[in-house]
């Protein structure tokens, strides 16, 4: 369960980091983001990436942080796949933190 939780946190972070780029945002929403929104998405993505790291250490210590960094790869791949196949789903992936936080009590 903790693996799934950490994967969802990584997925949300990378989806936000993809959306902060003008081209990917346009693919997802059909229009370019304002500079302020792009910056907000970027910092939200980075913050969520840090939250994931804290959660990984809290859940599984040193092992957790290694697992978390390794989970970035399938998460980033999912974002690339979504961008290639159905970019409109990317905003849904960007809120993956919600199910991740819902699963957190079961992962502890």
């Amino acid at each position, binding site marked *: 369960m903790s*693996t799934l939780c950490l994967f969802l946190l990584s997925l949300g972070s*990378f989806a936000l*980091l*993809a959306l902060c*780029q003008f*081209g*990917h945002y346009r693919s997802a929403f059909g229009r370019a983001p304002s500079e302020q929104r792009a910056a907000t998405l970027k910092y939200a993505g980075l913050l969520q990436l840090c939250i994931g790291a804290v959660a990984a250490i809290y859940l*599984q210590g*040193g*092992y957790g942080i*290694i*697992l978390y*960094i*390794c*989970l*970035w*790869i*399938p998460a*980033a*791949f999912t*974002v*690339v796949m979504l*961008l*290639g196949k159905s970019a409109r789903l990317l905003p849904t992936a960007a809120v993956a933190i919600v199910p991740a936080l819902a699963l957190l009590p079961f992962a502890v």
Partner: protein
Amino acid sequence: MKDSFYRSMNWLHTWAGLLVCWVLLLIFFAGSLSFFRHEISLYAKPELHANVITSAPPADLAATVQHAQQFLSTKAPHAPDWLIEFPSARQPYLSYSWSEKIDGQRRPKFHSQPIDHNGNEAERPRDTLGGNFFYRLHFDLHYLPVQPARYLVGICTMFMLIALISGIIIHKRIFKDFFSFRGGKGSRSWLDAHNISAVFALPFHLVITYTGLITLMFMYMPWAGLSIWKGDADAMFDEMLPRFTQPSPSGQAAPMLDVHTLLPRVQQLWGDEAQIHDIRIRNPGDSQATVSFNRDTGQQITDETTQLVFSAVDGTLLYQSPDNHSAAVAVHDTLMALHTARFAGPALRSLGFVMGLLGCAMIASGCLLWALRLREKRRQGFGLSLVEGLNLTMIVGLPLGTVLFFLANRLLPEALAGRPNLEVAAFFAGIALCALTATVRRDSRAWRALLGLTGLLALALPLINALSTPANIFSNLQHGQWSLAIADLLFIATAAACWFARHHLPKGVPEPRKPLREQTA
């Protein structure tokens, strides 16, 4: 200056990568499979698949140890070593082993007897190297003498590290193109594929390459340590990593105590929660006999064994692994653990395997990209032919060789002498077949034919496994033997990947030359 620096790094990345990429592909491929070394060994021994395999620890540990001691003292009373291995997640069966000294050979021969669910001797598994072949191939390159092979692997690893660092420097849009993959655009798509496979798994690539050098650092650069310990390597290791020194056998017989009587003391020293991975008895029957208990370290990020050693005659505690190491030893141990990943659970291990394959994809796409760029510039010549030939040999040869290795494992008669060597020969025969084909033709027809052959053989493997062994993919799924079921599923996935690759051949592969009539028409 910046432009010149960029260009010099570009040159370095190209040549550091290209010169060693095919050896690196072999190292990465074998290393990725080594993450599942024990699981591959289990798959390669179908005699263990029914009535032996169990993930549960022994219900009565003391009774099991007592039984093992009785068995070994009857079967191999004069063996220099006895080993009792308990079922673990990665090696899910109980086995009693002993070594046998053979005149003229430095290393003793090792015998292993698996025990079935009823505590009886199970059928001895077929002779195979299993996952150990891929593990040793990863740094010993099999046919080469050990020392030169390890130096060669070290040089290739250093080149890989240089290629990685120079690759980061020349990737100008590392963040902007982080999620970009533009398919169907010739060399642009291949560069994207190369970048994605490299950048996504970059932490893994950097760590695995750097720690790969660390694993053999005392061989590659021993001089700093040797100058301090005045050339005495043994003294250096004794001081850095203090270990129990096994006393030589005295030659005087002495009755051994019952090993299971030591279990309460082990629990007292380690706590009730501790799992014992194995028990090793050295010089049994001698007055210098010892019993060592090795702890299952689980998910601790360590490569060191946690050990308790007792005298097997009077039960005196002779050695206990220290709780704390010096900072330098702890750092070295952690780096080693990060490379070997012995601590990894199934999820992390699978991720390591996938990232290893991504490393293969990074290297293969780099090789193909080089050939494609040269062809786009219409630079024909020996260099291009050589690169195209080696691309076909290694990129298709490695999966073909692996499939042939497992086919040989299932189809060769069990009693055949030199069976393990023949399995290994089958692996290299796959690579040799691709190399021979590459000397004749290296175009898309050759790629399609060899990929088709690999796919068909990979698809046949689960079927042959079902027909030649007591278990099959469905029974393994039904009984929760995931590692065995996943092995069959991976062969099916390999067949699917070959089928996909056959129909979506990379642009780096040349099309066959058209007949002159068609060209002029």
